[in-house]
């Protein structure tokens, strides 16, 4: 019998009532539970912002890091000890703005990190400024007359960068989100889960998303064709959620590192070198 309190923390989330991030937190806990993970086997890494408060609210190992940098911290953890399940969880400012570079390269390398981006199209904690996913014309504190900047399209960008698991979910449907996260946890390598997680205070798009979203699988969509994935992501008439693309054919970066280091992972190898090796090293340049 699964203990539903396994991942419960002593800290109550301080998000605004109705915040989409509650749904993401619930979905993540549920997915970890149903995937049979134990709290000590999991590390949740985050950045800065409302959504990045996640680590304290879920009882696993956690690293609440700098703005934009959860991916490299997560990658360092995974490279040091690939037995850990490493989840990065942050907002659109973190992952599609200041730290997008790291996401693109994580996709390219196929780092074995599951990244959940709580996308609310706004900077929430800093009280409502334009984010990389804010829409053209969107009125915010930094765009009082409406945004004059086109939003970034993270999903096709990451797919183009070599993404091997690209999905979108909606915090209004945590059950579906949990299923997608469970699939991501099984995935071989990097998974990007764009989680639409509306900000009820600064940019409430709940009703709109509820009206427009549909599940890809309900339309018989199979996530095995890259070209079709681009088309599906760019649906102008609705907001598809689910897995757009997935391939298990690419080895993860950590698998490839293991081929080079022979499975001798840094956390297990904190020791001096054998004497014979030392002797040959000392004379390497002589």
């Amino acid at each position, binding site marked *: 019998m699964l203990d539903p309190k396994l991942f*419960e923390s002593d800290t109550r989330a301080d998000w605004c009532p109705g915040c989409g991030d509650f749904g993401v937190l619930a979905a993540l806990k549920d997915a970890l539970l149903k995937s049979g993970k134990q709290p000590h086997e999991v590390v949740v890494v985050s950045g800065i912002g409302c959504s990045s408060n996640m*680590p304290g609210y879920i009882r696993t190992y956690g690293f609440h890091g700098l703005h934009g940098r959860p991916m490299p911290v997560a*990658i360092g953890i995974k490279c040091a000890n690939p037995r850990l399940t490493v989840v990065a969880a942050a907002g659109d400012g973190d992952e599609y703005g200041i730290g997008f570079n790291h996401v693109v390269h994580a996709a390219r390398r196929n780092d074995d990190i599951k990244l959940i981006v709580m996308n609310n199209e706004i900077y929430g904690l800093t009280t409502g400024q334009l984010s990389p996913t804010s829409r053209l014309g969107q009125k915010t504190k930094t765009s009082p007359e409406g945004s004059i900047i086109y939003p970034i399209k993270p999903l096709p960008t990451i797919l183009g960068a070599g993404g091997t698991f690209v999905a979108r979910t909606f915090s209004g449907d945590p059950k579906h989100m949990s299923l997608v996260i469970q699939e991501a946890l099984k995935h071989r390598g990097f998974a990007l889960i764009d989680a639409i997680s509306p900000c009820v205070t600064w940019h409430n798009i709940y009703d709109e998303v509820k009206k427009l979203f549909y599940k890809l699988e309900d339309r018989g969509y199979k996530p095995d064709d890259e070209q079709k994935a681009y088309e599906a992501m760019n649906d102008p008439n609705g907001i598809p959620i689910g897995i757009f693309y997935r391939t298990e054919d690419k080895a993860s970066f950590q698998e490839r*590192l293991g081929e080079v280091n022979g499975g001798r992972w840094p956390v297990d190898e904190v020791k001096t070198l054998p004497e014979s090796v030392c002797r040959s090293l000392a004379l390497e340049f002589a």
Partner: protein
Amino acid sequence: MPHQGKEGELTIRIGAAAGDGIQSAGEMIMRVLSRSGLWITTYNGNQSLIRGGHVWFHVHAAAWKTYSMGYGLDFLIPLTQLAYDQHYERLNSGGAVIYDPSSVKAHDLPAGVRDLSVPLGEVALRHDRRPIMRNTVALGALCAAVGVDFDVLAKVIADQFGRKDRSVSENNVKAAQEGYDVVRQGAPPVRQLKYDYSSPKPVMTAGYAISMGAVNAGCRFYSAYPMSPASPIVHWMAAHARKLGLTVFLAEDEISVMNATVGAAYAGARAMCATSGGGFSLMQEALGEAAMTETPVVVVDVMRAGPSTGLPTKTSQGDLNMMLGISHDDFPRVILAPRNAEESFYTAERAFNLAETYQVPVIVLLDYAIGDGGYSTVENLDFDFRIDRGKMLSAPGPGDHNGFWFRRFALTSDNVSPRAVPGTPGMMFVAKTDEHDEWGHDMSDVLAGLNESAPLRERMQEKRMKKLEAIKGEMKAPELFGPSGADITVITWGSSANPSREAIRELHRKGVSVNALEFSDIFPLNEVEVTRILRTARTKVDVEVNYTGQFAKLLARDTGVEMDSYLLKYDGEPIYPIEVEKHVLSLRKEVHAVA
């Protein structure tokens, strides 16, 4: 009047354009002399380009310990006119210039310098379609001129090229033999030292030495983004990844490098990264993250001349101020600056032990002069390292758990909290870069501004900062070079000790009363001890490679002791012993005038 070369020493410089194989030729000279039982120090006069321009490689060898570039040039091998024009004025009387008169005009040769013209290009073209082998021919000529057995060079060539292709190696040996024969015919060597071919001495740069030392200290995670002059470290790590079981993460930028290093260390690895000043500027926010999360990392900065991108292949000790203040607000850090390759090797052991014992970031400052092309002989490498991981727990002690979390940031009498690593059952905690309480609860949101928060924040900041007091007790005092009680004391830090040592040796021959205090543990300074030592010095001259005298200012700040004189160099070139010597001699006049 040209200087006389130093008895028992050899200074050799080979120069040409980038792409002419100068670095590899210079390294072969180094190996030949090292395998002949001499002590070696080299310097790589490199430029930031791949083809063309002017590059040179300098080898200083002696029957006793060398530290720096020595005095003048006993041998100059200019493969281009520019190489001759740039360096011939340094030639010592009693030395020689080895050159090809068909491509170089040896004008204004200083008195007492032998003219060894060798048809380098012609010989090279007999063995290859391209003249690239002319530096090999020159190496043959050099070996004859210094009286080293040709077999030593033949073996060095075989080791250098043999892996690529046997015929390449054989052709090079033949070419070298011809160069050797041209100089040897009927003439005794120009300058011959006593050679001992029985035991080669290990040579390495500080960059390679710290790489080896780090791995031997248990570091198996290394991350980098390429940047001169730190790149040789990642080259070494990547080349040894399979053999030694290393995990090397070549990241997309230095921000990623530092964050990944913090992540790996948090996960329980011993993790290191390296860069130069510009890369370090990108790393600085994450260095604060390491300090705030009390994650032990070792970061190497191989300094080059700046600011900004500056001079990528020229040297400097200009990053000290940056390291003292790097990243915002106060946090503890340790700064070490080994003087040479050998000390760099052992510094790796200390850096990781200090980092893990005190859970602080440790910064190791090297520089281009010793870190990249600067090889030096290392006497005895003792690989018997101690690995001290500090307070590492696999299960919580009493009171260390609240049913949810491990008390990772516990306030303790020595200000160091027990640590656990992810994967350990029942020890979950959140490492926070936001201010936090002992349990890792966030203090930036629901706790901020509450009555109980201000004293808590105060205690957490004190807990981190007070570690510095204990670390001071582990800092090594400066090493005294020369006799105590000298009239003049040279103050050095890191690699500036090297030219100072050669100058002091020379000054002692001239009867000057001088010694040096060489600092390699830079911060935190053990103020009481350092003040006491500095007060014993009479006339103090600060020698360092930056504009403002950064280390002298640190000493003045923390001890109140001011320098009497400064030798500050910031032209991109390393300090030469002659510069220290002249400065001290000028001071001696002042000292005597006052007396």
